[in-house]
């Protein structure tokens, strides 16, 4: 029988919310990064990954382009750049 509606986290892949992104996306410059992890901590999507300096990255499958990571970066090492393409592949 169908129900109750329960889901185990492993079964959930998550919607590819990157497809709804605003017109801009974060571009991690990897120049002055000090690995303070603020971008990772503050990302509303939890889609920023990385451990070492100049090695942080946003998973564009989920990034909605809010720009909070760029705003919080103390080294201004994340630039918001205009999207070039549309849809899932952006």
């Amino acid at each position, binding site marked *: 029988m169908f129900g109750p*509606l329960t*889901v*185990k*986290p492993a*079964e*959930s*892949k*998550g*919607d*590819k*919310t990157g497809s*709804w*992104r*605003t017109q801009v996306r974060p571009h991690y410059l990897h120049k002055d990064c000090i690995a303070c992890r*603020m971008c990772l*901590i*503050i*990302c*509303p*999507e*939890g*889609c920023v*990954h990385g451990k070492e300096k100049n090695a942080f990255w946003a*998973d564009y*499958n*989920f990034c*909605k*382009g*809010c*720009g*909070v990571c*760029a*705003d*919080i970066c103390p080294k201004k090492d994340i630039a*918001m750049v205009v999207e070039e393409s549309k849809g899932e592949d952006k």
Partner: protein
Amino acid sequence: MENSPLFKSGHTACAGCGQAIAARLVVEASGANTIIANNTGCLEVFSTKYPETAWGVPWIHSLFENAAAVASGIEAALIYLGKKDTINVIAQGGDGSTADIGLQALSGMLERGHDILYVCYDNEAYMNTGVQRSGLTPFDTNTTTSPSGARSSGNIRPKKPMPEICLAHGIPYVACASAGFPQDLTRKVKKAISIKGPKYIQVHVPCPLGWRHETNQMLPVAKLAVETGLYPLFEYENGVLTGRKQITPKPVEEYLKTQGRFKHLLNNPEEIKKIQEIADNNIKKYNLRLEI
């Protein structure tokens, strides 16, 4: 943690959602041995649309107003099973489900002394239904049910003093936090779960859609609320004020002008004066002014 996130990507919150940030920080601070009961609201809807879930911890949603009571049942069951000492129970909801429709259930939970952390994500209106006024909507805010107009400058009442209401229950820990100060929020959650008994944390979470600011302005807006004295960050342990974020107060106008919900006030010095008084009272009450 990155291999099995406790609050993972793919949820459907709006871009720049302050609540999504705070919710992730709360569950990460509490850790994998946590069970969460969630009221109906934005967070519940955007994190658990079947067949997806963002939650890496056991999580339950029942109704709009009963997370505190459901969590009480979870806690009671864990005590019965002899597992309470190893598992944190969190009840959480938005400002409406906490201060309005869920206030009774929350009061019951606090009064009964359950070992539960209650987290209120305060975005200051019913955002999930389209920005209607709640008991935690600030004075003079323009919402869809407290609109400004020829005979109104917005919401007619100040915020319901939820932290004080919780304090009056004699609970061991009450704190206010903000998505704009993530490390402070994490620290407060960790402290709260280390204390046995009912705990209440109210987190100020900007809502770009409802507050009408750009998505990348989440942090400056959240910080200005604190820096003007309109959203004091404090903590009470056993009824005693033990911590506060001290500020060099900025005029409230700096905060108000960042958001569309206060736009109607900008040419209205009389109303701005009233809001400044609210901030001044907070600054005095909690001794927020940084002494130089």
